[in-house]
């Protein structure tokens, strides 16, 4: 019986909804904008403190700083060091923070702070070109011992990784042989490992890592061993031979670069303190998104004033959706189609109870005054105009009286749209004359009920969050409203209205 097919319509609505949800999901994944409001993400604030003693001459301090540490993203970096020139230099071998000053004497303290966000998706960058094992020369009798140890390790292993593990195990104190005792002394252990691995044809280097624990001060870097397996650098604990980077371990320095160089200073040392902070996930996403092209779709690029306006505007579709649902599916009668939405918007600014009190008192006083206006026999336009002026008087009066009595909430009356209130009063008054107080009560309470529902939906933090951060979700709202426009089923109120038909069934 359908005149034209509705299939294209449903396909269109389906596409709208799918587009809205998929763009939202995409932005959620790409930009990390959280679905839920109030979501918190941990952020490690790490402070490197460099101490040295100036010699009364020009000083240059250069500290190795992390460059793309695996498992972390760098959120911010800053230095605190009064009187010093500061810059971050990125050279081929890594990034360094550099402080400079013309004349330095006495004890000096420099700080470098960085915020690091745990992110498992960040892997280790593969080196630009595969590193070659260095050539190492040994003198006798060490050479023999090394050869023997490497032979044992090679026999028990198949890959560079297993070879490294076996070698570390052989070097441990509990299964030391003569060979190892000859080689190992307490302070050269890691360097020895690196040299031996290089000798065995495996590119190896040291790395320094920081174990992240909340609120620790004066921490030192822990040494780690890294080998290159032909694809990427692998990290080993040189004591336990454990492979991989444990959680809460930040690789501060990788490669052969020195950690700290001080020119023009003595007794230099570096220590670390750290703090675990939580940052709202949304703020984090915004900080990171500023560089991302996708953020063009968001509203955060706009001036603050426009942003707050859009916050309000973007809530309107939610109100419209609720009005459509209430009228089409539930069948609640309201006075004026979208008057409830505008009232709800005003409620959002005034909060519910003061808003309700203000709204009801303005309308009630307005109805009384309208009664007098109707006896004046005015033309419609001038009657409405007079009513608008009266409504402004009423709101001004309520605000002033409220303020003098110490209720600041009285001021919130001004958020109500004056013209809408004037029309509401006019319509209510005509309704009263024509259909009686009962109908006024039905439509008035219906409007207020819908307005309160819309207010409750619009004022939830989640609604504000989703509408503002995922504006594409409005496509879903649009799709739902379009779908409701095709709803031909019974309204809830009709099930009641047609009840007397039961006898004919």
């Amino acid at each position, binding site marked *: *019986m359908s*005149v034209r097919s509705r299939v294209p319509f449903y396909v269109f609505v389906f596409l709208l909804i799918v587009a809205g949800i998929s763009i939202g999901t995409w932005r959620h994944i790409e930009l990390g904008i959280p679905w839920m409001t109030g979501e918190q993400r941990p952020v490690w604030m790490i402070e490197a403190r460099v101490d040295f003693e100036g010699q009364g001459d020009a000083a240059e301090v250069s500290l190795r700083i992390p460059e793309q540490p695996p498992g972390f993203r760098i959120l911010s970096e800053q230095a605190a060091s009064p009187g010093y020139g500061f810059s971050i230099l990125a050279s081929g071998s890594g990034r360094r923070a550099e402080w400079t000053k013309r004349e330095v004497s006495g004890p000096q303290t420099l700080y470098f702070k960085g915020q690091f966000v745990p992110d498992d998706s960040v892997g280790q960058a593969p080196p630009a070109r595969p590193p070659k094992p260095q050539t190492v020369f040994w003198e006798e009798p060490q050479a023999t011992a090394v050869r023997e140890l490497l032979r044992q390790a090679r026999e028990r292993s198949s890959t560079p990784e297993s070879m490294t593990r076996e070698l570390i195990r052989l070097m441990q104190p509990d299964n030391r042989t003569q060979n190892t005792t000859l080689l190992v002394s307490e302070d050269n252990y890691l360097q020895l490992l690196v040299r031996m691995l290089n000798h065995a044809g495996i590119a190896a280097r040291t790395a320094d890592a920081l174990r992240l624990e909340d609120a620790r001060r004066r921490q030192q870097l822990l040494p780690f061993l890294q080998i290159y397996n032909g694809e990427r650098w692998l990290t080993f604990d040189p004591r336990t031979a454990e492979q991989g980077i444990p959680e809460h371990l930040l690789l501060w320095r990788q490669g052969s670069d020195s950690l700290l160089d001080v020119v023009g200073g003595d007794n230099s040392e570096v220590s670390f303190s750290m703090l675990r902070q939580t940052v709202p996930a949304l703020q984090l996403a915004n900080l990171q998104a500023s560089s991302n092209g996708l953020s063009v779709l968001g509203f955060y690029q706009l001036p603050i004033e426009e942003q707050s306006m859009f916050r309000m505007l973007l809530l309107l579709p939610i109100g419209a959706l609720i009005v459509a649902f209430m009228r*089409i599916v539930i*069948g609640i009668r309201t006075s004026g189609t979208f008057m409830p939405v505008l009232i709800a918007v005003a409620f959002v600014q005034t909060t519910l109870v003061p808003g309700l009190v203000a709204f009801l008192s303005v309308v009630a006083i307005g109805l009384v005054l309208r009664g007098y206006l109707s006896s004046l*026999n005015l*033309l*419609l*336009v001038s009657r409405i105009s007079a009513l608008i002026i009266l409504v402004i008087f009423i709101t001004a009066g309520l605000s002033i009286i409220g303020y003098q009595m110490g209720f600041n909430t009285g001021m919130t009356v001004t958020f109500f749209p004056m013209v809408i209130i004037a029309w509401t009063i006019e319509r209510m008054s*005509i309704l009263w004359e*024509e*259909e009686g107080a009962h109908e006024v009560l039905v439509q008035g309470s219906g409007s207020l009920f819908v307005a309160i529902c819309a207010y409750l939906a619009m004022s939830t933090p989640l609604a504000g969050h989703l509408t503002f951060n995922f504006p594409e979700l409005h496509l879903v709202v649009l799709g739902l409203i379009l779908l409701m*426009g*095709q*709803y*031909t*089923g*019974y*309204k809830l109120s*009709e*099930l*009641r*209205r*047609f*009840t*007397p*038909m*039961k*006898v*004919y*069934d």
Partner: protein
Amino acid sequence: MDWISPRQLKRLGMLNMNRRNVDYIARYNERSSYPLVDNKLKTKLAVSEYGVKTPRLLQVVRQQHEISGFRTMAEDLTGFAIKPAKGSGGKGITVITGRDGDDFIKASGARIPVANLERHLTNILAGLYSLAGTPDVAIIENLVQSVPSLAKYSFQGVPDIRIVVFQGYPVMAMLRLATTDSDGKANLHQGAVGVGLDIGTGRSLNAVQFNRPITLHPDTGLPLENIQIDAWPDMLEMAARCYEATGLGYMGVDLVVDAQEGPLLLELNARPGLAIQMANGCGLLPRLKNIEALKRPHFSPKERAAYSMKSFGRL
């Protein structure tokens, strides 16, 4: 709370608001034809070409300054009705049935000075009763004197007959009787009594007020079971003819039976209400589908009325 299940409603073929709007009004009523029915003056002119009679037009007040002409025109009239051309649901209609010196007597018996009527005209011109608040025109019509056989059932006000016409076929009809609750108006939602009429014979079926079944008129106390409308086939044909005049596929035709002039068209409605189904005790949907399924529609209004009487009659 008493509820009826959607399945029951479906079985009864009850047309509901959303379905009426989407499947019938939006589909069969051309937007451009709306002004023809929303403006009583245009309706009058349009249907007169198709031989449908309406109450005699006495005066049209278009401008504020023409209101002074009303006083002289009404000088020697005793009965007339003032209507806003674009009013809906009987809003703004004032019926004058007599005079007492300089004052007029309303249908309710209340006296009303000329000044008040002029103010009423002013309100109409300003658009107080028009659908979208747009400026309007007031029309003054001859008073309809209802035939006594029907008038006795109604409390004040003129009883009128609402016929739903779908694609030129009268599909359902009811008699609307004013009550004290409805203040002399024939609008069901204001409390008028709706009496379902058998399309086949013009005899009354059930009666409802405020959606509740009744058997006696609440004010006149007369039984509502055995009302018979005279010249029923003519009235159906007249209603069917309005389809040609307006081109509206789904509309409500409001007729009155005047004692002198016979059936007259009061107004047309492009969005007829659903209460007619309750007055008839059956749903509209089966009848609408019957018409939609017609392979070869009848061309003349007479044939269409005859088809409806045959297909939708009770007996």
